[in-house]
């Protein structure tokens, strides 16, 4: 057994750390959050130049064929510095889906442009009445005299404003004996009939309502062949949930580091507050929560990398880490006292984002249901 990162992963980690420290300071995070657009083409281009977009893309498409563990290491660092979500939308939600179920033609068409940073995309999935249950997806393509079209609303679509394309998950037409019967459509964001409305969230994430108003579909829009798309989509979402765990572990690590520093420096009643047992126990609890989250996440990421079935382990990681990140940021906030509540301070950024991340891609309750199902309950 070996619980350490390998050499390449250490390099990814180090270089991401250095890059983000310089190019993505918290001042930029704050600025992007407050800006409605919230997009820095410059930062995006630099990330692409470092090869981040291509990290897990196959060599054939200009990628470097990295593993899921490599990706997790990079995303953990992004989580540490609250890097913007474009990478997650385009790569974790978008490119992974295309890699997993796209046809050769679609991969050819999409992946090279993604790996150079020239193409940005996202995934649209949740509907007004669906919650996070795939089975509740109602939107479906319709036909009239002049062909197929799409009508309806998708919610909480990340980064739709800068996306060039949107993978839209719709219900199939019950032609097949698959439950749930899903189709994934790869739609050009410029297609007539698409309109987006920004949603304001606790985390400052750029989430959107995407409205499809008689958006014409061509047969090419169907991502992959039908059999694959339905079977793989749940796995794609769970992989994304695991990537979210890595992001949360990074954020939690940063919160713990900040809190320890603060507890050592802040003096009240003539002692650093870090010498008070209540604060020490808060910090010990944070470290326990963090380490459990980290190893549950690494373990599942390693299994995924090795091709070992790990649906249960991914669900375990996401359930635990979601709760842990809430606990860690809550205690971090408590330790920082008034100082950490002020918008000028970084602590509150993590506090708000934790709630959003914990809920994203299946909250703890949802994931525990998954675990129970995999246990045969």
């Amino acid at each position, binding site marked *: 057994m070996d619980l350490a990162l390998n050499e390449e992963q250490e390099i990814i980690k180090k270089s991401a750390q250095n890059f983000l420290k310089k190019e993505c300071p918290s001042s930029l995070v704050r600025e992007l959050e407050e800006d409605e657009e919230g997009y820095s083409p410059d930062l995006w281009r630099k990330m692409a130049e470092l090869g981040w977009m291509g990290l897990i893309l196959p060599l054939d498409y200009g990628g470097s064929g990295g593993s899921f563990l490599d990706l997790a290491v990079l995303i953990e660092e992004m989580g540490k510095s609250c890097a913007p979500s474009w990478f997650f939308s385009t790569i974790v939600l978008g490119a992974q889906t295309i890699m997993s179920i796209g046809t050769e033609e679609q991969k050819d068409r999409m992946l090279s442009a993604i790996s150079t940073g020239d193409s940005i995309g996202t995934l649209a999935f*949740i509907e*007004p009445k669906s*919650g*996070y249950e795939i089975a509740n997806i109602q939107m479906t393509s319709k036909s009239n005299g002049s062909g197929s079209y799409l009508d309806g609303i998708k*919610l*909480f679509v990340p980064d739709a404003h800068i996306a060039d394309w949107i993978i839209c998950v719709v219900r199939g037409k019950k032609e097949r004996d698959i439950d749930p019967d899903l189709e994934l459509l790869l739609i050009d964001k410029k297609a007539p009939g698409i309109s987006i*409305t920004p*949603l*304001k*969230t*606790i*985390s400052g994430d750029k989430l959107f*309502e995407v409205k499809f108003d008689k958006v014409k579909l061509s047969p090419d829009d169907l991502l992959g062949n039908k059999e694959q798309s339905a079977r793989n989509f749940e796995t794609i979402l769970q992989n994304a949930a695991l990537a979210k765990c890595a992001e949360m572990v990074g954020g939690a690590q940063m919160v713990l580091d900040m809190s320890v520093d603060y507890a050592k420096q802040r*003096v*009240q*009643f003539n002692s650093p507050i870090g010498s*008070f047992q*209540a*604060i020490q126990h808060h910090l010990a609890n944070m470290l326990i929560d963090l380490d459990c989250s980290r190893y549950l996440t690494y373990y599942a990421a390693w299994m995924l990398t090795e091709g070992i079935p790990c649906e249960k382990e991914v669900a375990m990681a996401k359930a635990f880490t979601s709760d842990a990140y*809430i606990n860690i940021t*809550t205690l971090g*906030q*408590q330790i920082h*006292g*008034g100082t950490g*509540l*002020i*918008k*000028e301070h970084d602590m*509150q950024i993590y*506090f*708000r984002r934790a*709630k*959003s991340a914990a*809920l994203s891609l299946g*909250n*703890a*309750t949802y994931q525990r249901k998954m675990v129970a199902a995999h246990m045969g309950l």
Partner: protein
Amino acid sequence: MDFRFSKEEESFKQEVRDFLKVEVTQEMVDEVERGTEIGIGPHCWELMKKMGKRRWLAPAFPKEYGGLGATRWQQFIIADEMTYHRSFPLHLCGVGIVGPTLLQYGTEAQKKEYLTRIAGGEIEFALGYTEPEAGSDLANVQVKAEKKGDSYIINGQKVFNTGCHFSQYVWLAARTDPNVSKHKGISLLIVDMKTPGITVRPLWVMDDDRTNEVFYDDVKVPIENLIGEENKGFYYILTALAHERSFPVGDMRRTFEEFVEYIKEEGLGKDPLVQQSVAQLAIELQAASLLAYRVTWLTDKNISPNWEAPMVKVFLTEFMRRFSNTAIEIMGHYGLLKKGSKWVPLEGRIERLYRHAARRNISAGTSEVQRNTIARVGLKLPRG
């Protein structure tokens, strides 16, 4: 044992409710819900004056100073109904802290000058205690007040002095004697916010509220603005804290009721997991109400709720945290939406509560400090 309000109290409650039904408008609620971003806004000043007329603003003040000489239960009823109707932005420092302290230690002139105006809803005070190095350790005040002739000259920096951008006065703790142990050299002063030399810099809080850094640069305060005796300020502060211990749960009750309605409408209440979580919250809210009753019952009997009030503080603010955390999980992604966003449920109140609760567990004494007090005062455990 009797958990009922008396007939008189019930009819007083109805009177307050009827008043609020007429007076509380949507504009006022909007203003209130922006919290200390604006503090007391125009609609609130108007309501305060109307309440002042009815002597409900500072009901505990004697009648000669615009109060009602009300019982603790009447005060509780007003506060509970006001918060339930979302008609109050914050705890009023003039009514809750300045008034009682002046009544006990103020000069006749001070009482005349301030009390009636406080009770009439004309003026408000900001609390001027906290400093960068004096948070939980309140006695560590560094801001200096040096006596020169018939004035004190104030210099130094305060932080998290929330009311300073909308109050007419600040109720300032300053060090008047640097040569004695730290609890013994602090005095309380009333400072007019218009005095030259005061700079107020906004600090924006995670929950979109505003607080302030306040810089005092040779600020001249007349010596008649000293409260009580010089260097006894810390003692007065502690005494005033004992006055400031009514914890209405009206606002949480209201928000919880609305949340329960929401989950019924959305059909979420059939889920056994939701049922468990929501029932647990209902139980805790009930417990918070009962603990709050106890505090009022004790103060009504002239017993100082020295540890019972901290218990309400920590239980209620931690309830806020659990409530908002659980409610957002139940509402799913919608729970993350902020007020003003398309698709936002319940006007974003619960989303905001999640951010606000973090603050409420810190301000006015952290949960850790409250637990220390419960242990040391309530259970008489020795200091470390």
